Structure formats: structure tokens, C-alpha cells
């Protein structure tokens, strides 16, 4: 694949770059602003790979026009078949090409009078596949619940306490609401995008901490769109139970706020790398005054290192 890309690099630099960076195993995923670019890119990439014996098949697009240019056996869904309810799995997420929205895959078992054990809860939680964190505020409740059960030292197949069991059934009973949950794929629908900017938020509570990142696209007509790109949550580390709560081991909220700032920084760095965005104009927000004013707002040169 790299060789093919290098071969066409001189005549078709865009397509060569796309072949190098937009293949995910054997799937080619690429998004371009206009239909003409898309058609051209498809033709070039298809031609280049076909010449080496790799015939790209099963095309899917949110554009009927593009699909119409692909020969019949090459498409997964013909333009006529592209119905609003058509769904394709893209890297574990569900994509509805016609509406151009992402959904989260929830193939969850239906629980009927089952014994609620730590094993069951963990298996249920692990089935929610949400790599970009769209459902993070909901999924964190499962994580917090699991941590609580862990702290209570339950065995894998032991039935959890009534209170925890109730919490779990309450969470699972409402989860079906999320099967209709969808998030728009394009980051902007209006005019030409002139500026893109990352905006991050972080927060911590005594149970968990969370970082979430938005992309703000400003268009040439002065309007702007803000969409969530990614979120990450972690549960707060458990304080060692055998130590006195007042001892040094106890993790303070301020420390958690700093951990969440670190988490946000990592997330921002990763996303900006993936989307080719500059960190120069990223804005990051926290609601912790101690973290901000006391630590992060200080210029690095005033920081003294204590060995």
C-alpha cells in the first residue's frame, strides 16, 4: 500500500496521502468537503489500487451521486437502497449514511430476573462500545457502581447488595433510550469553514473525573458551529481503606482536578494530532480555581523543582 502511494505521490499527492493515512486495516475512510473532490479521489484511489490488484469494493457514502458513479457490483448499498434506516458499521460505531449520523452500538443482553453479580455488571458495562465517549456521562455511572461493589469486597458470583442491585436495574432499564441516540458526523453543515478551534473542559468530583472536547468551526459568513468530538472519563482512585482518611494518602479534589487537567491535555493533544489542528488557539476550561490560578496560570519559569 505504501509502495502504491509512493508511486502516485508525484502526480496525485492528495490521493497518495489519503492512501497512507486513511486506511484502517482493509477499510478506506475519507471525508472531503465537496462532491467533485470525493468523486475524483475515489477514482484515483480506486484506479491506483486496482492496478496493483486490490479492487476496492463495498462503497458507502452519504452522497447518492457518488454512489451512482461506482459500478453496481462495487457498492455495498445502491443509491436506491440508501434508505434513512440504512446502517453501516464504521470502526465499531454505527453510521447512518443517509442522515450522516453516528450511533453507538448497543447489543446488550436483555436481563430478566437474573442474579445481579459483579460478573454480570462488568460484562454488561464492557458491552457498551463507545470509543469516542459520546455516552460518557451515563457510562460513568456503571464504572462508579463497579468500583463501589469492588470496595465492598464482593466475590464475582455473589449477589450484590440490594442498594447496588437497584441502581444497576435502574441504569439498565433506561438504556434502551440510547439506541435512538445519534450524533452528527460532519463538524459543520454551514458555509465554508475558515477556522477550526478545539475547546476543552475538565472537571472532577470525589467519585470521578472527566475531560470533554468540542470543535468549534467558524464559517466565512460569521456563523459558527460547536460539536462534541470526544470525551474521556475515569473514576477517582480508591483511597486506601486501611489508612486514616486524613493521612497524606488521601486524594484531594484539587489533586483530582489536576489529574483531569492532565487527562484533558492528553486528549487535546491526541485529537489535535488526528485532526491536524493547531493547539495554538485551543481553549481549555476548568471550574477549579485552585488548579487554574494557583498552579496552571503560573508561568513555568516560576515553578521551582523540589528534588
Amino acid at each position, binding site marked *: 500500500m505504501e509502495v502504491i502511494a509512493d508511486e502516485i505521490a508525484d502526480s496525485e499527492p492528495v490521493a497518495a496521502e489519503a492512501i497512507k493515512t486513511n486506511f484502517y486495516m482493509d477499510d478506506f475512510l475519507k471525508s472531503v468537503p465537496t462532491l467533485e473532490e470525493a468523486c475524483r479521489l475515489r477514482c484515483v484511489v480506486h484506479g491506483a489500487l486496482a492496478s496493483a490488484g486490490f479492487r476496492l469494493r463495498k462503497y458507502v457514502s452519504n452522497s447518492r451521486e457518488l454512489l451512482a458513479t461506482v459500478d453496481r457490483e462495487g457498492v455495498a448499498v445502491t443509491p436506491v437502497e440508501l434508505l434513512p434506516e440504512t446502517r453501516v458499521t464504521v470502526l465499531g460505531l454505527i453510521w447512518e449514511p443517509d442522515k450522516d449520523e453516528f450511533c453507538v452500538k448497543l447489543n446488550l443482553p436483555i436481563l430478566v430476573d437474573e442474579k445481579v453479580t459483579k460478573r454480570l455488571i462488568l460484562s454488561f458495562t464492557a458491552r457498551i462500545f463507545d470509543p469516542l465517549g459520546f*455516552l*460518557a*456521562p*451515563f457510562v*460513568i*455511572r456503571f464504572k*462508579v457502581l463497579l468500583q463501589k461493589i469492588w470496595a465492598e469486597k464482593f466475590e464475582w458470583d455473589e449477589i450484590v447488595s440490594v442498594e447496588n442491585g437497584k441502581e444497576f436495574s435502574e*441504569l439498565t432499564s*433506561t438504556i434502551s*433510550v*440510547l439506541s*435512538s*441516540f445519534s*450524533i452528527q458526523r460532519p463538524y459543520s453543515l454551514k458555509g465554508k469553514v475558515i477556522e477550526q478551534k478545539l*475547546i476543552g*473542559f475538565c*472537571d*472532577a*468530583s470525589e*467519585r*470521578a*473525573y*472527566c*475531560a*470533554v472536547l468540542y470543535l*468549534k468551526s*467558524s464559517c466565512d459568513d460569521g456563523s*459558527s458551529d*460547536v*460539536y*462534541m468530538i470526544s*470525551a474521556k*472519563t475515569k473514576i477517582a482512585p480508591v483511597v486506601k481503606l486501611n489508612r486514616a482518611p486524613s493521612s497524606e494518602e488521601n486524594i484531594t479534589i484539587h*489533586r483530582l482536578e*489536576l*489529574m*483531569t*487537567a*492532565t487527562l484533558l*491535555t492528553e486528549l*487535546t493533544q491526541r485529537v489535535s494530532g488526528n485532526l491536524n489542528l493547531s*493547539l495554538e488557539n*485551543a*481553549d*481549555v*476550561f*476548568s*471550574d477549579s*480555581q485552585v488548579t*487554574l*490560578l*494557583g*498552579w*496552571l*496560570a503560573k*508561568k*513555568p519559569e516560576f*515553578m521551582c*523543582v*523540589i528534588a
Partner: protein
Amino acid sequence: MRNRVANIQKVLPSERWRYCRSRENPADLGTRGISARELAASELWLRGPDFIKENCVSSFGLSVSDLDGNASAIANTQAIQNCFFANARDEGATFNVSSFCRLQNIVARILRLKVPREFEGLWRYFITRIE
């Protein structure tokens, strides 16, 4: 802790960090956890708080309005802080030193009057910047 701060500042320097109110912070939802129904309907989570949609973001100034006090003083502080941060943005390039310092001074004084003892660290920060 210092290492962590240093690592953060390597990627996102101090000028990039801003304050926002808890209730406008979408990450707050992620730490408290919300129900499936709330999540599906949450504009805050999916589209972010309203203030980021506007073009100029100067929400550092909002910190004071969270505190109790008389309304006009708050409005006053807010106005001063807004222009204070408008100025702060140009810091390093071509900002007017005397007016910037004056603004800082005013802000620091107001903060000292208004801010309760728990937030002592906050106004001390402004004062030290002036010194």
C-alpha cells in the same frame, strides 16, 4: 504535582487555561453521571455551553459573579474584568502598561473586598502579579 503542571504546560501553556462556572461545564455531567434520558436530551453535553458559541470568550471574569455581594458591585466588577481580559489577551505584544496595571489594581482591590476568606489565594494571585 509540579511535574504534572509542567507536562500540562508543555502542551497547553497557561494562557490557554480559562475558568468557567461549574454549571456551564459539560465535564461536570461526566463526573456526576446522568440518566440515559437526560443524556439523550442534553444540549450542554452534545453542543457545549452557550458561551463558547460566541466569538469572544472571556469567561475568566465570571469567577467573581459567583460570589455573593450587591448586584451593582458585581456588574461593575464584571465590566472591569471583561476589559481587563480583553487587555490581557494582547499581553506581551502591544498593550498599554499603565492602564493594564491600573485595571489589575482595581480588580485586586474589589476582589479583596468581596472575596471571602476561603478564596484568599485568589486575590493574592492578582496582587502578586502587580508587584
